[in-house]
């Protein structure tokens, strides 16, 4: 029987990367600038409400990498078109809406955010989103299946204006399942269990990109039992699988 010689582990490298982040942090020492005025900039993730009565919109793409536990040797990054819509209701309260689609499967969500500014650079928000997803596949000799479900995402975001033009947001979400129904031919399965399905962490940078166009660029790591985009694989695991996502959006 063969033995594998583990001479070095990737955890060491991650530790080194952490140290690098520390070094970069210290390299910023002494570069502080005057922060008297922080202009309001468009942002979808940054926890700052739009001007009351105004809309904020974005269109972009989300790439989700499939976990090997489900797609085995086929490791792909699946794109979804991603629309966001937000409306300010008051200085610190706004509504959110999001629509993601891959045509054969789509997800629509609504929610709200309540914002608490701490300084002119540091903001926090608490929010609650509820989403419904739907998928349908009709392929000869392969699929005659549909599924839909409802999930909810209580979330907390911390936003920090790194400089005048660059805002960073860290968001933590709990992923809670409310309802799941799938159907193959005439047989259907319904799960009504209301339980925590996982958590997700988002790291997002928002800034001007070219001319007056602003963008959101970031990553989201979801650790969850179920991911709506992979409903057609009928995952049976009760394990939190890792779904890394790359998020890129143009703020309109």
């Amino acid at each position, binding site marked *: *029987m*063969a*033995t*594998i*010689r*583990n*001479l*070095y*582990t*990737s955890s*060491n*490298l991650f530790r*080194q*990367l952490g140290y*690098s982040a520390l070094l*970069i942090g210290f*390299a*910023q020492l002494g*570069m502080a*600038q005057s922060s008297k*005025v922080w*202009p309001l*900039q468009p942002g979808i993730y940054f926890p700052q409400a739009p001007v009351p009565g105004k809309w904020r919109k974005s269109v972009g793409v989300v*790439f989700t*990498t499939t976990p*090997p536990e489900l797609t085995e040797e086929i*490791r*792909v*990054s699946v794109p979804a078109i991603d629309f966001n819509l937000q409306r300010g209701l008051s200085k610190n309260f706004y509504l959110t809406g999001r629509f993601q689609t891959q045509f054969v499967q789509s997800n629509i969500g609504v929610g709200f955010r309540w914002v608490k500014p701490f300084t002119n650079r540091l903001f926090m928000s608490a929010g609650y989103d509820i989403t419904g997803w739907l998928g349908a596949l009709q392929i000869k000799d392969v699929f005659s299946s549909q599924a839909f479900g409802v999930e909810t995402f209580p979330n907390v975001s911390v936003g920090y204006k790194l*400089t*005048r*033009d*660059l805002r960073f947001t860290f968001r933590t979400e709990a992923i809670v399942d409310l309802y799941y129904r799938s159907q193959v031919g005439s047989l259907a399965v319904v799960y009504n269990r209301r339980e925590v399905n996982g958590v997700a962490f988002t790291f997002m*940078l928002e*800034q*001007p*990109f*070219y*001319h*007056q166009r602003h*963008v959101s*660029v970031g990553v989201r790591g979801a650790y969850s039992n179920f991911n709506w985009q992979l409903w057609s694989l009928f995952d049976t695991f009760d394990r939190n699988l890792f779904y890394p996502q*790359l998020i890129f959006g143009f703020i309109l």
Partner: protein
Amino acid sequence: MIYRRLQTTSWVVLLLLLSLAVQAQRPSSARRQRRLQAIEADTLTDTRRGPYTVVVTAGGGLSYYSTHLGVPAAIEQTRLSRFGTPSSLRVMWYPDHRLRVGLETGWTTMYSYRGQVAGENTHVYVSAVPILVVFSMPLGWLTGTDRSIARRMAITAGTGLYVNHSRLDYLGTVMTNTNSLGWMAAASYTYPIGRRFRIAGELKWFDAVAVENAAFTAELQLVWRAFSW
């Protein structure tokens, strides 16, 4: 022993790059002047656009395979190498703000091992060609001058495909390629040497996730501001 020596070398290269930063001298550009005017006006919605620039970066250096590797137990008298000489080519679009986007490719050795099986020589060699979409940002943009370290240091991250190449020499030669999703993260320091040219030092982490190939590289790069409009 040799690994430790080369690790030391890469730290020396890093320190050299940092010392270059301290000595850097470069007059301010008109572009920076305009940006400062924008700050003074306290607005980032400057209606003027550009200039936009396409920047081509090419470089090479040293790589170290930085994750676990496996040598079959059947191999005797194993000689293992984690080092390689990577090269990279990057084409970036520098718009009129901090964020830059582009494509990167190149080639890097991952690892290789030699040995014997029942008196027969064996050799396995693994390398990878990244094809990545990359985003990059200088640490300083609205502040500092061209002399400051923050303006010259940039962090870069990318994701995409790695074409992993494997060559086996044992009772014949087998050469295969396997694609793997992966990512890259890098930190660089750029030093101006002319109107359109800069040199840069970059420390970079390549990670081809599905095949679990990861390498840490240190590269010296030539940066060419090819087009501007």
